[in-house]
């Protein structure tokens, strides 16, 4: 088409190669990764503009760690110092996994916004807004993990596993939280409101994180509860994290945690993606 331009073309600075051409209408894996990373960047920008979003990941680790350690410390382990190796790994798992709920609620809120219509109208990988959101949430896990560990250190916790053990535990917790966040993402897709997602996910996570060895020795609990704790996947993560932080040891619990995470992703990721593509 020949056009007469009255003003210098502003798009003239772009070379042809930068513009999407109709011929390039199949989305490559490379484009999918690039689109997802841009979406993750968007997620991080959103955190930057609404720092109050981070209240839960910043305040919860600080308050819970302080509160539970001083409330239960004396009763359970005789003194606070002896209780720290028990509670810090436990509370780390509880806090970071609880943080993953936000993935579902935010995804729901985000999908209801007008900007999602634009994403749908762009020649991009359909999955990228979802993948980007899940990736950006890793930042939240990292903040919650760091704060919990730092709180522990301030209160006098000296992890026997050393820096490497702590680092390994942090990676494990973040990987498990990422896996679990797929469940909330699916709930976000199915629920009509963000508050519904919040409600249901708390209802699921609360018993799972508390009926665990996180705070109190399992031996003191009734038999039926011990049986539940034994099959509770969260327990395995807690044992694995304790092994790593206190002894620098990677055992079967570590393997089970990763295996469980893989199963969750294998089951929920395809379901979530399928639901997402239907709506997107």
């Amino acid at each position, binding site marked *: *088409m020949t056009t007469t331009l009255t003003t210098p073309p502003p798009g003239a600075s772009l070379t042809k190669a930068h513009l999407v051409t109709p*011929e390039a209408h199949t989305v490559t894996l490379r484009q999918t990764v690039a689109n997802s990373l841009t979406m993750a*960047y968007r997620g991080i920008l959103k955190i930057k503009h609404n720092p109050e979003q981070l209240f839960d990941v910043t305040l919860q680790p600080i308050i819970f760690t302080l509160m539970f350690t001083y409330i239960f410390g004396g009763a359970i382990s005789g003194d606070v110092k002896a209780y720290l190796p028990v509670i810090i790994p436990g509370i780390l798992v509880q806090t970071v996994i609880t943080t993953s709920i936000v993935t579902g609620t935010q995804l729901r809120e985000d999908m209801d916004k007008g900007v999602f219509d634009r994403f749908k109208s762009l020649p991009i990988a359909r999955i990228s807004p979802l993948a980007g959101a899940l990736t950006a949430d890793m930042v939240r896990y990292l903040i919650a993990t760091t704060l919990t560990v730092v709180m522990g250190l301030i209160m006098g916790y000296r992890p026997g596993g050393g820096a490497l053990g702590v680092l390994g535990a942090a990676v494990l917790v973040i990987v498990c939280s990422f896996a679990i966040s797929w469940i909330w993402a699916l709930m976000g897709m199915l629920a009509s409101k963000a508050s519904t997602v919040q409600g249901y996910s708390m209802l699921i996570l609360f018993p799972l994180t508390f009926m665990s060895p996180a705070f109190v020795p399992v031996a003191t609990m009734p038999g039926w509860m011990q049986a539940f704790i034994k099959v509770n996947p969260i327990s395995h993560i807690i044992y694995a994290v304790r092994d790593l932080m206190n002894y620098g040891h990677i055992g079967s619990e570590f393997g089970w945690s990763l295996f469980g995470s893989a199963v969750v992703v294998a089951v929920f990721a395809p379901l979530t993606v399928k639901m997402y593509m239907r709506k997107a």
Partner: protein
Amino acid sequence: MNFSAGNTNVPAVEADGLVKMFGQQRAVDGVSLTVPQGSVYGVLGPNGAGKTTTIKMLATLLRPDAGHARIFGYDVVKAPNAVRSLVGVTGQYASVDEDMTATENLIIFSRLLGLSRADSKRRSVELLEEFDLAEAANKPLKNFSGGMRRRLDLAASLIATPPLLFLDEPTTGLDPRTRAQMWETIRRLVREGATVLLTTQYLDEADQLADRIAVIDRGKLVADGTSDELKASVGNSSLHLTLQDRTQIEDARRIVSEALGVEAAITPEAARLTAPMLDTSVTPEILIRLRDNGIAVDEITVQKPSLDEVFLTITGHPADDTADTETDRNVA
């Protein structure tokens, strides 16, 4: 900006019998239309007529339940990504990110379209300047006015200079000044070679911008033609007359009917008189005759057909059942 689409013989939009069902309701019921390249096509209709749903199907946001549509020859269902790379969509509700600044919005959309970091920045600056948003570039969108939001939305649709633009009610809810600015922007885009399909509730908007207008009602296209053709089918202007003393209404009717050569109608309240007008230049003559007969006039207006009248004429029922005062607006 250079909107180029390659082959100029293919129509920009070719829709054939598009249908979209929402439950039992046929939101779009067999819409067929053709938009040649380089033209502005206006889709005119009241709220809920199926305008947005039609655009959403053409822009691959909704899958048609029946019928076909091709954008520059690419099927919207079979080659959605090719279509997406050729169209820019500006929705009725600004589809930009509220949480971010204008620059960040444009950079993210640019990056998604495959522009490099440096090019994204450059393009964002260009567009913000072009749309008079440079000063607000780094302010959060929460502080933006409706007009600024629409302009940003349109800017975001133009990042990759798509050859076809879908503008869904681009001026609904804007004040008259901002509306005029938006019209000017649309005209400029067309001068630069873009093809535009716009929807509107306002006859004057379609009249001002569109080369061809389709009237859509309850999911069906009920009329299609140039602005003049459409108006001719509706009739010309109409005269509305209100008297100070309503007992003189019969005399007034006789005078008006004689002057215009058609039968004038008295409203049920018997306070007003209306008559279709082929030639508005007889208005002073009517006023003189009324004065000579001692009939005092409270109000006299000569109006071009309103959307309501267009609808009444074409569809045989009022434009909208939902209370939308905007549809009562007269053609300026």
